[in-house]
């Protein structure tokens, strides 16, 4: 239980016969940036809507600072919400949109002051009298954000706020959003299906799949120690090393952790490395690094079917003169090796299409 932030206990939600959320338990720390991360359709928006009060859970409770707010309608919660497609009022100017929630809540004189403050904060002064259809997607996004935070809400909820923007604007707004959150110190929950977004922005990531929470942790924890094969695969790139025998654990390792060495360098460092030979299949230039896929070779010299992906720096790639059909040795450092119990493997294999 966290008496300070948001707490969600035993929340369930069904749509007809479809179980959208099952048994959700989450603690969202006060003043921090939390990301709900998961593939499309896993129930992130539904959970966010339940937190906002726009949707009712079938059972379970939502607590804010220890107070049960489950029965409160959205209008009474003072949460700021930015919708996936912004939902700006098309018949109102930028100013009118931002001032919408302020009017009637605070004295008229203060509305003007607050509005000016928001326009300045979000750098919207130049377009204050335009209509939503007359401004760019990035600007619309900032207006939606300004409208949501104008009332100094206790919690800010964002549903894929950046997904409708093009890549350049998205990266810029990511930074702005983080800065704004830090400046206001507002408890923030952002929904996203983009793992990079979650890793770069969040203080805490909640990974969801099929209406369930699968892992909660800092970006480093979730990236370095994904607790299921699904999380490992969903966040970042990963190699799985299937072992033929049943009841053996599934091993996995991220491409950048695999060490590539010249052929025959098996026993270079004898500290629990697993190593094997592999032949270069494909080299992909990624700017700062190369992503190499290799096919492991067994003792008889025949190649396996599933490739292993390894990330190497440009320097290393040049040093070894990597090209197609070069045979190399791959080493898997024990401290980076991920290991999953066989049950989870079966479950994940079934869940994968």
């Amino acid at each position, binding site marked *: 239980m966290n008496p300070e932030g948001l707490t969600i206990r035993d929340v369930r939600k069904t749509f007809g016969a479809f179980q959208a959320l099952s048994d959700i338990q989450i603690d969202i720390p006060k003043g921090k940036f939390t990301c709900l991360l998961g593939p499309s359709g896993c129930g992130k928006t539904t959970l966010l809507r339940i937190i*906002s009060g726009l949707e009712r859970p079938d059972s379970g409770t939502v607590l804010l600072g220890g107070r049960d707010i489950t029965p409160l309608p*959205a209008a009474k919660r003072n949460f700021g919400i930015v919708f996936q497609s912004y939902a700006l*009022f098309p018949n109102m100017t930028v100013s009118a949109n931002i001032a919408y929630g302020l009017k009637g809540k605070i004295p008229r004189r203060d509305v003007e002051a607050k509005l000016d403050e928001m326009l300045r904060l979000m750098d919207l002064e130049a377009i204050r009298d335009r209509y939503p259809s007359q401004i760019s997607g990035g600007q619309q996004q900032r207006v939606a954000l300004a409208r949501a935070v104008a009332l100094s809400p206790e919690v800010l909820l964002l549903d894929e706020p950046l997904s409708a923007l093009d890549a350049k604007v998205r990266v810029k707004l990511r930074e702005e959003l983080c800065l704004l959150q830090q400046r206001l110190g507002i408890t923030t929950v952002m929904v996203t299906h983009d793992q990079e977004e979650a890793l770069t922005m969040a203080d805490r990531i909640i990974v969801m799949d099929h209406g369930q929470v699968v892992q909660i942790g800092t970006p480093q924890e979730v990236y370095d120690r994904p607790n299921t094969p699904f999380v490992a695969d969903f966040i970042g790139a990963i190699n799985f090393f299937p072992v033929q025998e049943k009841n053996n654990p599934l091993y996995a390792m991220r491409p950048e952790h695999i060490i590539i060495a010249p052929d025959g360098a098996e026993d270079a460092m004898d500290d629990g490395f697993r190593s094997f030979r592999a032949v270069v299949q494909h080299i992909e230039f990624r700017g700062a690094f190369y992503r190499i896929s290799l096919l492991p070779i067994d003792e008889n010299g025949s190649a396996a079917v599933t490739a292993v992906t390894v990330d190497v720096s440009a320097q290393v790639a040049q040093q070894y003169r990597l090209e197609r059909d070069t045979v190399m040795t791959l080493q898997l450092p024990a401290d980076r090796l991920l290991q999953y119990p066989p049950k989870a493997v079966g479950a994940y294999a079934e869940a994968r299409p």
Partner: protein
Amino acid sequence: MTRTDSSARIDSQPQLPPDNRGPAPGSRIQRTFERFRRSWGTAEWIQAAALLTMLLLLTVLIILPLISIFKQAFLTVDGSYAGLAYFQTYLESPALLQSLQNTVFVSFMTTIIAVPLAFLLAYVLTRTDIRGKSLYKAAALLPLFAPTMMHGIGLTYLFGHQGLISTGFFGWLPFELRIPLYGPVGIIISEVIYTFPQAFLILTAALSISDYRLYEAAETLGANKLKKLFTVTLPSVKYALMSAIIVCATLSFTDFGAPKVVGGQFNVLATDIFKQVVGQQNMALGAVVSIVLTLPAVLAFVIDRIVTRRQQAYVTSRSTPYAVRPHRMRNGVAHTYAGLIALAMLTLLAAVVTASLVKVWPYQMTFSWDNYKFTDSAAGGFAPFWNSLRMAAITAVIGTFITFLFAYLIEHIRILPLVRQAGYFLSIMPLALPGLVIGLAYIFFFNDPGNPLNVIYGTMSILVLANIAHFYSVPFMTATTSLKMMDKEFENVSLSMNVSWLRSFMRITLPLSLPAIMEMAIYFFINAMVTVSAVIFLYGADLKLASVAIVSMDDAGDTAQAAAMSVLIICTNLIVRLLYEAYSARIRHKTVAWRER
């Protein structure tokens, strides 16, 4: 030097001077023509011929008759220019000015009553989850199937001297409920009934596309119900509301049927035209009143066109449909309101049906078919009904054919953009023309001995043509919308007007447009059955129509027979509509699977 070369290459017309001020206008036309000749194949020439024929036909059907009205208003009998003399006569006649004032009053009152009533019903049926919505909707749309005289006749049986309600259920109740029906009150009630379904349809369409995201955004910003109504609902239907207001105002401004039946001594512009033309044979003054009647309608039409375009821009592709939350109290209120409206509509219809089926209302309330024999001289037997049926059927078939063809030409042909724009404009213009004005324009134009087309005067042909011109615009827009929705890929095929074009037209365009085509035919049929304004000047001596018979029977005091004829019309229309619904349910079954790929 270089420039000369390149221009010669582009134009391949070396005989033109290398003049950078451009060629003379004459040679430019020649050049344009040359370009056509080079780039146009047979297909383009056929297309051009089709477009020009269309424009010619629209001109004959709409523009030339309208011009003849202006001729009547501005020229003396011997053909010299009369200037504003007739308009002066008009302005100097206190009676005619009084009618203008009356008409404005009726139109204003009708609008401020009908639009809120229709808005509430549209709101109730789109924003609640009550059951029986389709029944409530059907009841609200009933007046569309009846001639406007029927509303007046129904009102006389309810609120007239011997009305059911005005006499307190023939004295069963201890009190009477008399209203001064004959005059403005009766006209306004009739017009409200007449315009209500039109406003209801416009507002329902707008309310059902509102964007639910905005309601949620408002909700999270702490807005209460009232604030949501004023900041989300009303702005999103603002243009539809204006459109509904314009339609109600125009329809009630120009209607002829209701004032004829319940107007009493209260004159309006539409009855004035009739009196000037039929009663006093004063064609010039009739033409002047027609122009006075049309001007506001044209103005309203222009405003409506602008407004409709704005409304379309309001809807975005990201909109989500309105999600109704359960609420018992609200649903109770909704049921009550929708039920009251349905009750009012059904009571009116029931009064007319009952009156037509009894011996003598209210003295001999025993069942009898006598009123359906139409024996009195004013009625003229059953012939008017058959004439109307025949006219409506022909109008539906020919009207639908022409309308669809024209919409297709305007929508799918790529050449001659100006001709197509002119065609489009002429196609939506009839929306602004009151039926009486079309009728009058048609007599002036086709009754002119100098017009080679005057052979059709007094025949079925002129009735059909007048109806097509009168009701052309709405089916035209239906066809255009349907054609626009069709896959763009088919368009390429149809660009080459050859055998494969014909085949693609018959096998793809036509079947896909079938629902729209049926809708258009029904619209033509029903409106041709109920209309009186355009045809009252045009029917021949041996070609009396049902709607005209209603007017003359009512004039002659045979109200019960007029009621019987109204019942025949509404029954015919309802049967046609129900057959169509059954048919379209089957078609939908087939094409939905097809469309959903």
